[in-house]
């Protein structure tokens, strides 16, 4: 009897921690993949990568879209808010998306939803946002670290059009907020 109850207790242990292990693993996978992407994209934190047109050599992130020029960056707000700015195309689709380190997209806005093609944002944690005084729009980030991704449409891949959009891509910048005291 004692042996049987010991087996049952053991089995219960395995089952309960099996369920915990199941959800811990599912929760960990996106975070791990995020870190792998960070290593592959390989840029310093709080800087913007502006790769050229996407082709078969683009292997940092799966399923890249060759119709876009990307501007990407891993932001870290531990040392304070960050200013994100850029002069984006006036007539073409573009969008800005922000992600948490668990890959959840917590902010997305496209060109038609911005008031202007001149992007002027401050990224801040909720705590930082309460202490900010700025005329720029503040985007509250649920985590102090994350990933930002601009998508600039280049449907027509002729060199002049790519060059035109690339100029807008090159204007995107991410810098410490103190540099731009309002």
């Amino acid at each position, binding site marked *: 009897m004692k042996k049987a109850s010991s087996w049952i207790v053991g089995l219960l242990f395995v*089952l309960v921690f099996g369920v915990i292990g*199941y*959800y811990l693993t599912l929760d960990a996978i996106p975070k791990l993949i995020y870190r792998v992407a960070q290593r592959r994209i390989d840029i310093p934190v709080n800087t913007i990568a502006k790769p050229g047109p996407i082709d078969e050599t683009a292997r940092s*992130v799966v399923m890249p879209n060759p*119709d876009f020029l990307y501007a990407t960056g891993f932001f870290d707000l531990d040392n304070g808010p960050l200013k994100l700015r850029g002069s984006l195309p006036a007539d073409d689709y573009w969008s800005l998306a922000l992600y948490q380190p668990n890959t959840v997209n917590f902010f997305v806005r496209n060109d038609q939803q911005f008031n202007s093609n001149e992007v002027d944002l401050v990224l801040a944690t909720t705590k930082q946002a309460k202490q900010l005084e700025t005329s720029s729009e503040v985007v509250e980030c649920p985590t102090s670290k994350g990933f930002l991704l601009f998508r600039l*449409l280049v449907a027509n891949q002729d060199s002049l059009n790519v060059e035109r959009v690339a100029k807008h891509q090159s204007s995107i910048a991410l810098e410490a907020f103190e540099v731009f005291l309002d």
Partner: protein
Amino acid sequence: MRVKTILKYLGLVLLGLLLGGLWAVYQLNQVKTSTSFQLENGAWRVNPSMDLSKNTFQRALVSRIGLFALRESEVLYYVARTDENGDPLSSAYDYEIVGNALDARYWSFTLYGEDFFLVPNDTKQYGYNMENMVYEDSTQSSYRIRLSSREQYDNWLPAGKEKQLTITLRMYNPDPTVVQNLASVALPIIRKIEPK
């Protein structure tokens, strides 16, 4: 005796965690489970909700094959890995993707290989979109994309040498009628042409 008991239960905890983790990975690799929350529309599959904050399993799955995807409010991702008969898409065969213009601000087709990256080819053609498509009619509505490893004319999408192909149809800012009818909206058919 006490130490032995503690070690025994510690071992059971670790065993439970390991088995749970292995089960999670196994389920992610099972197509049936991994597509259980998707809607079907012919050969196409779409996630009606890309709010990954709510579903741990979906978040793990999407991070593997669609990292940094956008919410459904911005883009719809229809993915096809089979033709209209349910046979896996492969470079061993030729296909036609036949359809009409879609109701979205911008739409495009992109081809990926078995590793979910762009298929290498000399022409650097990885997809077609509403602007570079050669249409079959003067109203620029109907089109035919030719998916093949052999050179084709008009809208040739080089298929390389891939055992499994994936076609992603992206619809940016789709019309509300599309969003409300994900499983029934008219989408292109993917038809195998001839075996090689």
